[in-house]
């Protein structure tokens, strides 16, 4: 919506909500990647006391990522409430610099001082000027030409748009398809049926991100600030401290031309390529299933599907990411290991009709399991791979 500075129509709001979906989804992946990059065992550059600290950071970053997923789910409820459909597409990593209005694009980087500064920038309270922040922290300056500069600004625009359209005209979505905490593991998710609930939902997102005046010490911005200052302090205390796995940043399985290829690292090692590709397809399937759950009115059956998709995250997706971090990325990258690319491959939405959806899901799943078995047979892999696949087979949609 770069030509406009105000949301005035349903279509404007839908566009902004799609943009919000993309950003929340992109941030969630970026945060997950960084959390995955932290070491989880004592080694020569990580003492046991430091392990406690690093594990706390990882847990905190995972928590923020889960709140971004909640925000995405909340935006999906907002979308369906005003007649839209849930939207999970987003540009692949690493993004071209000017895709969003952030001066520094969302990308997949291991934990570092600059990564944490970047995370802080995405969650910047509106009381801090983004230009000044970028200049101070990154030594960069940009021209100001956009309609919003922070995620908080984007939601403020959506809020104004919602307020400007008569309530009965705007909220035409099927109220029965709104998703609550009975279907999805987000106790704080709000069902959106009118202006009041929609504004509550947006306020909650804004509070969790940038915080409010009274609650700022619990905001994402504050959490990242805390981690960064603890990290900087520990580097001073111990110059051998290194809490990060030796993984590559911005990994890519294939160059599909839609990314900032100059900043991408194409995986070379065959097993890493196959596992990374499998990771992406499983992850996309998870997103597709969740999208279906937010679209269908068959809540009883979709609840089981929702559970299945959410269960994939801890017991399949995360162990596969851990597995990748133990496999060499390829000779170009010396001793570095692989990492997940979170690439979204072209695919259709799963339809809202449950009977059709379940056929598509089962077929796709069977195919992915078949691929995982092929990989298992071909390579000797870290135990995380076998455990992830065993877990995948143990749950059913």
């Amino acid at each position, binding site marked *: 919506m770069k030509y406009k500075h105000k949301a005035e129509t349903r279509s404007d709001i839908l566009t902004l909500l799609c943009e919000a979906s993309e950003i929340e989804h992109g941030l969630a992946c970026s945060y997950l990647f960084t959390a995955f990059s932290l070491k989880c065992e004592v080694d020569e550059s990580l003492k046991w006391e430091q392990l*406690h600290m690093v*594990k706390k950071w990882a847990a905190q970053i*995972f928590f923020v990522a889960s709140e971004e997923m909640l925000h995405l789910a909340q935006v999906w409820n907002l979308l369906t409430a005003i007649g839209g459909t849930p939207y999970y597409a987003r540009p692949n990593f690493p993004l071209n610099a000017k895709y969003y209005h952030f001066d520094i694009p969302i990308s997949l980087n291991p934990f570092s001082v600059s990564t944490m500064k970047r995370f802080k920038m995405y969650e910047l309270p509106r009381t801090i000027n983004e230009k000044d922040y970028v200049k101070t922290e990154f030594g960069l300056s940009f021209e100001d030409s956009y309609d919003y500069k922070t995620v908080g600004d984007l939601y403020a625009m959506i809020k104004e748009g919602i307020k400007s359209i008569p309530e009965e005209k705007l909220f035409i979505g099927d109220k029965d398809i709104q998703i609550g905490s009975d279907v999805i593991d987000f106790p704080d998710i709000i069902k959106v049926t009118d202006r009041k609930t929609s504004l509550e939902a947006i306020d909650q997102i804004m509070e969790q991100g940038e915080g409010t005046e009274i609650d700022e010490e619990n905001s994402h911005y504050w959490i990242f600030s805390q981690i960064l200052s603890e990290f900087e302090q520990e580097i001073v205390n111990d110059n051998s401290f290194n809490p990060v796995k030796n993984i590559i940043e911005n990994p890519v399985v294939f160059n599909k031309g839609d990314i900032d290829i100059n900043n991408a690292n194409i995986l070379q090692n065959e097993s890493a390529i196959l596992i990374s590709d499998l990771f992406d397809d499983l992850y996309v399937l998870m997103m597709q299933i969740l999208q279906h759950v937010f679209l269908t009115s068959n809540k009883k059956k979709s609840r089981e599907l929702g559970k299945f998709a959410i269960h994939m995250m801890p*017991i399949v997706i995360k162990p596969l990411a851990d597995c990748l971090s133990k496999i060499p990325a390829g000779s170009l990258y010396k001793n570095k290991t692989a990492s997940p690319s979170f690439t979204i491959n072209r695919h259709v939405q799963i339809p809202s009709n449950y009977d059709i959806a379940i056929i598509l899901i089962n077929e796709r799943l069977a195919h992915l399991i078949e691929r995982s078995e092929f990989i298992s047979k071909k390579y000797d892999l870290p135990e995380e791979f076998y455990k992830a696949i065993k877990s995948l087979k143990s749950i059913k949609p």
Partner: protein
Amino acid sequence: MLSKKELLKIFYKLSIELVDIKDLKLEVSNYYFELLLNEYGDDFISLLNNNYFGKKAKSTSSERKLNGLIIYLWYTSEFITRSELDSFFDVSDDFNKQNEFVHSSPVPYYNGLVWKAIRAHPLGLTGGYFGYWKYKPEN
């Protein structure tokens, strides 16, 4: 006479054999070696020697006990001293009894095999992130 370096290697190999897990932490193995050597002296050396020279078939009851407590050590990081050895193997003993041994570092405890076996994590060291406990274990 085997050198200490060789004995350390044999202990590591013996440990792997006893618990049937390949990726035991070498640092922890070396630490346990010192503890056992200090407490069980010649008995421990003779266990390693016999193991090295393939005399396992003739293992004595005291060697079997030492093997048992090495396994227990790797699982739980609880170190059984010589004075506790008999009661440790007494089936009528109180199984929940805890001794007063305090390690110099928490690392042996964090590497206890029991956590892996029960698909949990060492109590006192996070299992990951908020809410993981609602789902099946990832490991």
